[in-house]
């Protein structure tokens, strides 16, 4: 039975909608300050080299104020989310194209751009490696330390060898996923300035202001109290704003010049500056019994980390944990490797390793179904996770596992919907389904904490503090709705403050699909505590008046509290449940909770040009509970678009570590004309530990799109696409590859 909810579950308008649609929202490139100067970054142009830098000519250029290089870094010349293996500026060894070498600051942006060309960099070329499979060999050029393999995750369950012997059907294939960019709308930009007390303030679009503060302070040799990060409006992130880009350069320049400093990257530079999605090479073998019971899986995953670790360990771990898909398989062996190469560094991107593996496991499910002549839906239903199932890591899924409902809903909706227009000559249509699961949160025992505070204001509103970033996903709205619900006040009485490290507690990163669940929980607890305090104080005031008080406004309550020298305020922290897995077997309970989804897709493929049009998508998404159904639909549509784009179009053209297509006329992402009709089906199954039952969905909404489209392409053409993107060329190759001459 649904509890009575007043604000949660309603499609409230986004609290940031008005300022964004009217253009009032302040993105970093919109900020202008008196006396502001401009910086421009010089980046490495070779993938592996030793460099020497001569900045004298640039310094002498009229209008140039500073040329910052490694020697100017006041503190530690490094940053990095896991290892500190990024340099603020290269100190001599270059490991990839795009590493910052110098930051030229000048009176105008034009002068800075011109003077950057005057910084002389001499390259002594070193050997390089661009394929992670080659980088694993013992004779490969090394990037860091004594091996390019920076991580090996082992998952061991049951006895795979014996199990395959008794399987009636085995499918095996290799899959390759492309390196792609987040392609967020707003290229990196920021402004830094000094306050009179020596605090350096950085205005930047970031996913995690508190962690940025820590990294900036360390590089600047300052205490964190002297660094203040203010989050501007963020024009999309998707994981691409987790690693430092502009922050430290700007802070250094502002400190040195004592003037506001601004930088705005071009789209071309943005492609160079932030992380990319890990390309993965996946070998996978799945075995099943005659009746369709899945029995064994063996897989090897090799992920290209590029030149720096970023989140490679967590991503390849997540890939390994999710390799089986949302199915019970008693015998599993997975080896997942993160490997350095001289390619651009890869890092967090929506799906975080759990996005690549469905391309393998969900295509294998269809192949097994075809071999056994079982309906693909029936095969999935026979094996799918339910409450009480054990995952391959041995984790018990206790509750909120509505996978079967999502599968049935998606399959039913796609089977009854069909493109009604008659099929033209040369076209074929097909349908496909796919199911996924996704463990939200940091995982593997890493402390996953969200702090929050709430206080009654003089105006009788409740001000809520949480350092959670609105990256476009709707966090500000959803978190405000949760606060209003917990406080039993209307949404307009909640004022959420989330943009300033000086004002807000650390609520963790806007990543891992964790803000609704984790910070939502922190806010819910803080607000429930405040509500109880407000009720108790109301009773106290009422008692003092001989219990005559029927109603007291929050404004009057504030005045009554102040009169007594009391502040009505509460704080809370929420820590997600996660435990570290065994190093040798990968057994354990790494994530909680899990989110599930099943998508169905219909495509039309031109059998000569290979062009694929997605005609229809039905997306059945488990959400625990939808705090704001329209925002959930927005996430589903965006997630599907991103998944479709990766499946059909996106690929960074890499040539010896150089990205060739660094603009949107060559790096293809879809337009409105490419999008199909998307039917969102929200499946609710509230999770006890979640705020009003709501689980994270930001990443899960993307994951089923890729395999559902690939399965539909196969249904239409018979071609199995195992290498992304499924471009017209790939499809034509897959259809006619062997009989090319016969054309």
């Amino acid at each position, binding site marked *: 039975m649904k509890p009575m909810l007043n604000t949660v579950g309603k499609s409230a308008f986004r609290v940031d909608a008005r300022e964004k649609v009217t253009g009032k929202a302040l993105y970093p490139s919109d900020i202008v300050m008196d006396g502001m100067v401009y910086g421009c970054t010089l980046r490495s142009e070779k993938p592996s080299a030793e460099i020497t830098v001569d900045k004298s000519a640039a310094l002498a250029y009229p209008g140039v104020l500073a040329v910052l290089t490694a020697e100017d870094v006041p503190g530690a010349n490094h940053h990095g989310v896991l290892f500190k293996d990024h340099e603020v500026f290269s100190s001599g060894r270059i490991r990839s194209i795009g590493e910052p070498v110098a930051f030229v600051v000048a009176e105008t942006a034009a002068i800075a751009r011109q003077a950057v060309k005057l910084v002389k960099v001499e390259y002594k070329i070193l050997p390089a490696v661009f394929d992670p499979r080659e980088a694993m060999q013992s004779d490969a050029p090394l990037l860091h330390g004594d091996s390019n393999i920076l991580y090996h995750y082992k998952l061991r369950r049951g006895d795979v060898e014996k199990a395959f012997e008794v399987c009636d059907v085995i499918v095996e294939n290799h899959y390759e996923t492309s390196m792609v960019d987040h392609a967020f709308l707003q290229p990196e930009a920021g402004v830094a300035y000094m306050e009179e007390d020596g605090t350096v303030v950085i205005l930047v679009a970031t996913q995690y202001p508190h962690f940025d503060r820590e990294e900036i302070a360390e590089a600047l040799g300052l205490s964190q109290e002297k660094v203040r990060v203010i989050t501007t409006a963020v024009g999309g992130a998707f994981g691409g704003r987790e690693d430092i880009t502009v922050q430290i350069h700007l802070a250094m320049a502002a400190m040195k010049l004592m003037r506001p400093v601004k930088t705005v990257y071009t789209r071309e530079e943005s492609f160079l500056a932030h992380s990319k999605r890990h390309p993965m090479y996946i070998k996978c073998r799945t075995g099943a019994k005659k009746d369709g019971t899945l029995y064994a899986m063996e897989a090897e995953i090799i992920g290209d980390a590029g030149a720096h670790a970023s989140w490679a360990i967590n991503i390849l771990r997540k890939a390994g944990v999710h390799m089986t898909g949302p199915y019970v398989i008693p015998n599993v062996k997975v080896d997942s490797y993160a490997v350095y190469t001289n390619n651009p560094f890869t890092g967090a991107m929506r799906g975080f390793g759990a996005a690549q593996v469905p391309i393998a496991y969900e295509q294998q499910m269809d192949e097994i179904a075809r071999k056994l002549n079982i309906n693909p839906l029936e095969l999935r239903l026979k094996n799918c996770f339910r409450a009480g199932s054990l995952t391959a890591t041995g984790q018990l899924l206790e509750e909120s596992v509505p996978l079967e409902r999502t599968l049935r809903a998606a399959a039913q909706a796609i089977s009854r919907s069909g493109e009604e227009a008659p099929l033209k000559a040369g*076209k074929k249509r097909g349908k496909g389904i796919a199911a996924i699961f996704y463990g939200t949160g940091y995982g593997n025992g890493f402390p996953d904490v969200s702090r929050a505070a709430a206080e009654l204001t003089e105006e009788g509103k409740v001000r809520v503090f949480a350092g959670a970033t609105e990256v476009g996903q709707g966090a500000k709205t959803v978190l405000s709705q949760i606060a209003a619900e917990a406080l039993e006040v209307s949404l307009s009485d909640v004022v959420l403050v989330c943009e300033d490290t000086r004002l807000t507690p650390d609520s963790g990163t806007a990543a891992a699909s964790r803000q609704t669940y984790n910070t939502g929980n922190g806010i819910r607890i803080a607000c429930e505590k405040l509500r109880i305090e407000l009720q108790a104080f109301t009773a106290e005031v009422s008692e003092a008046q001989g219990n005559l008080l029927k109603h007291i406004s929050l404004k009057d309550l504030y005045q009554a509290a102040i009169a007594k020298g009391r502040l009505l305020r509460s704080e809370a922290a929420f820590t997600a449940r996660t435990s570290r897995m065994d190093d040798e077997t990968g057994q354990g309970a790494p994530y909680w909770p899990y989110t599930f989804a099943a998508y169905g897709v219909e495509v039309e493929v031109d*059998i000569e*040009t290979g*062009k694929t049009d997605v005609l229809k998508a039905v997306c059945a998404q488990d959400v625990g509970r939808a705090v704001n159904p329209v925002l959930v639909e927005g996430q589903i549509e965006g997630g599907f678009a991103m998944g479709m784009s990766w499946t059909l179009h996106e690929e960074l053209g890499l040539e010896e570590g150089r990205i060739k297509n660094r603009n949107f006329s060559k790096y293809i992402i879809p337009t409105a004309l490419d999008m199909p009709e998307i039917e969102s089906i929200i499946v609710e199954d509230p999770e006890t530990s979640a705020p009003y039952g709501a689980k994270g969905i930001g990443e899960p909404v993307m994951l089923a799109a890729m395999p559902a489209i690939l399965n539909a392409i196969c249904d239409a053409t018979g071609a199995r696409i195992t290498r992304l993107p499924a471009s*017209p060329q790939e499809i034509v190759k897959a259809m006619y590859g062997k009989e090319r001459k016969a054309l």
Partner: protein
Amino acid sequence: MEIFLPVSVEEAVHRLESGKAKVLAGGTDLILALQKQEVHADYLVDLDRIAELRKIAISDSSVIVGSMVTFSALAGNPILKDKVPALWDMARSMGACQIQNRATIGGNICNAAPAADSAPVLMALAADCIVMGPEGERVIPMEGFLAGKGKTVLRSCELLTGFAFGLPGPGEGCGFAKLGKRNALAISTISCAVRIKAEGRRIIAADVFTGSLGPTASREKNTEAFLKGKDIGMLDTEQAAVLLSEEVEHRLGSRASIVYKRVAVKGVFKEAFRKAVEDVLKESMPDLGEGSGSK
């Protein structure tokens, strides 16, 4: 940089005579090239204010399209939509709204990109390019106007003022199809325009031009020869497409892209041919049935 804004063709031609000038005819390519310093000019001659170049004049038998007519204007013209659907189709599928609002058909032709969508269509329509120079007007057939990638036969102080072509008569039809990497804002990977003229059911003339399969749009003679004399509803389009595929492969030789393009060109041709047939048949006959395929 100086920009001149002449109000007449004569004035524009006069401006072109005095120095290293570039003609600005919309600017969707030129401005980017100038920004990237790939193109250098002493000054620009912007044709924006010459009203007569923006006209579309349609008579009973012929059409004159001014060189400064935008793709939006072409796509918004109901008579072209009805009488010359290939041109209309091409205009509305080029780039996207914002590009169509600025880009002009004359600019598209003079920029002479191998992927220019308007080139195969104007060639198939047997358009004449009307050119004004210091010595007066001359006419150059569209098929002879392009001289290579980024090159035309225009002399340095000549101006392309428009295109003239006959309206397709009874039994005539024209179709255009293109393949891009997405449904909008995509440079054509392959484009194709087909014009046929039929007497009864027999094709008596066929013109087939492809784009993006060579330095300029090119006439595909073998395919044309095959189509000629065939029954419009009975001919084997697969055989025509295979001939085209071979013709293209012969021309492009060992380029890496040929592996895909030789297959894909068949699909693009078939769609253009199907549209041309529909155009022929739309007033004369009921559905002659391109069979509705099945999975």
